[in-house]
């Protein structure tokens, strides 16, 4: 019995050291990331994309969310499982409430972009965003569902220059670091699941999926000429598959990261050009800001108007 215990001790030591290494790595990864530059770039861009998209949606607010709109409140309760789903627009369904809801939502996006009361702004924007979604799930698409996560993570993020100068690891910096990492992981999760789902599709396996997308209801142009380039369609289809599946792995490699990001920018520019979901493309490209190094983010910020680089703290 004693021999066995003595034999096991080095294993326990090994396990303990592995565990401690893991904990140190975990803490370093989630709690000590210096993400100020990346977030100074990401947050205003993200808020701007959302602001423009939702100003356009506001033009059809009455149709989507109004009392006389497509989703009658009675029918909403009957046809959509309402347990745990909530919406201010269900509790206050009047037209005035709808416009107040829309106005406060848009203002919260502006203040979020400007870095004024960033956490409060993100929290308000998140709640009102979900409230809109629950009022009418039929008009929700990828752009809205992805925004949910980023708005939620931004609730924890505050770019505190003062704390950074003092190199203090206060609670606020830890929360910011954790929020930043969750933004990164979220992008990886989106691409991973999106890629794996595509693997189930026969048309993706056949290499013709891009052709179907070229002909979709969302397609901006009708390009018969593409049919003369079947090899291009196949290459782009498989390229999309490979890129999405391997993004979550390759993005963490220093050597591969620039190429992965470049591939993503090209892919989303292509999607934005071919298919009428430009805000979705803009959102995904914007999310790449969280994968830049501080120096790269600073370099990009320098190219923006001075306002972005100086007034987006907080």
């Amino acid at each position, binding site marked *: 019995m004693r021999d066995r215990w003595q034999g096991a001790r080095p294993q326990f030591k090994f396990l303990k050291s592995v565990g401690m290494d893991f904990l140190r790595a975990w803490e370093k990864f989630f709690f000590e990331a210096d993400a100020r530059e990346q977030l100074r770039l990401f947050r205003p861009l993200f808020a701007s994309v959302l602001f423009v998209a939702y100003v356009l949606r506001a033009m059809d607010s009455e149709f989507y969310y109004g009392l*006389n709109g497509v989703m009658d409140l009675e029918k909403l309760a009957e046809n959509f499982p309402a*347990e745990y789903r909530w919406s201010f627009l269900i509790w206050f369904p009047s037209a005035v409430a709808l416009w107040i809801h829309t106005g406060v939502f848009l203002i919260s996006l502006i203040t979020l972009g400007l870095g004024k009361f960033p956490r409060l702004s993100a929290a308000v924007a998140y709640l009102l965003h979900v409230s809109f979604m629950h009022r009418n799930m039929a008009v929700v698409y990828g752009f809205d569902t992805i925004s949910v996560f980023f708005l939620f993570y931004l609730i924890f993020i505050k770019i505190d220059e003062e704390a950074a100068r003092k190199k203090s690891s206060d609670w606020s910096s830890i929360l910011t670091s954790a929020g930043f990492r969750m933004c990164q992981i979220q992008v990886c999760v989106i691409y991973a699941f999106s890629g794996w789902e595509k693997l189930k599709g026969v048309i993706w396996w056949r290499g013709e999926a891009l052709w179907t997308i070229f002909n979709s209801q969302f397609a901006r142009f009708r390009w018969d000429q593409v049919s003369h380039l079947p090899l291009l369609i196949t290459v782009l289809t498989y390229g999309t598959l490979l890129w999405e599946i391997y993004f979550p792995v390759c993005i963490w490699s220093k050597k591969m990261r620039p190429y992965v990001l470049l591939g993503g920018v090209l892919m989303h520019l292509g999607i934005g050009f071919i298919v*009428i979901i*430009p805000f979705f493309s803009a959102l995904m490209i914007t999310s790449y800001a969280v994968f830049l190094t501080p120096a790269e983010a600073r370099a990009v910020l320098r190219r923006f108007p001075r306002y972005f680089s100086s007034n987006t703290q907080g």
Partner: protein
Amino acid sequence: MRQKRAVLSVVLLFMLALITIGPNQNSYHGQLFSPVFSPLFAVTEFGSTWSFFAPDPSTLPVRLEWEILDERGEVVRDGYFPATGFPYFFNERQTRRIALARFFYFADDKHLNVWSNWLCRSNPDAKGIRLWKSNALTPDLYRVQRGEQSLSDIRFEERQSVGNVFCDPVMKLDQAAERLINNANQTSAAELESNLQLSVAQTPHGRRDAS
């Protein structure tokens, strides 16, 4: 601070589980955690699935079609949604309309219950609505290559009936039956009976201001 970090670590682990189980809720582990996660998904909207253009792109153009009927069951006018092409200066407006149409296209029950309700409310003279859904077929790559087909001539070739609904909530059952019998010269008795039951089940769709 150490305790706070430990608590935050637990929260992060929970959050990681949430965002990885959310897109795969039908899996074994998804079902296992569903008593805890399902309410959270509903409250927070963290349960999204990520399947852009997957597993099959199936982005065939679709539209919702309808015929507005008068008291005698005759077509007053017809319409479809969404509008063809991109009628708005900002395409985003059309994108959401397409999303809305696709939602009802793939959910016949909601098409019958929700979309018809809106049609009834927005067409005060409607006594009934006949609902259809149609889709275009994706042109074959090789036929387009040979010039036998063109992408620009998309036609909504496949049309399916979704059902009929009465707009007027006070429409009497016997009136409905009488109308069905009058319009059913070529229908067998069994079909007539099932139609009648279907129509009666759908009668409560009413205009908000109908009373």
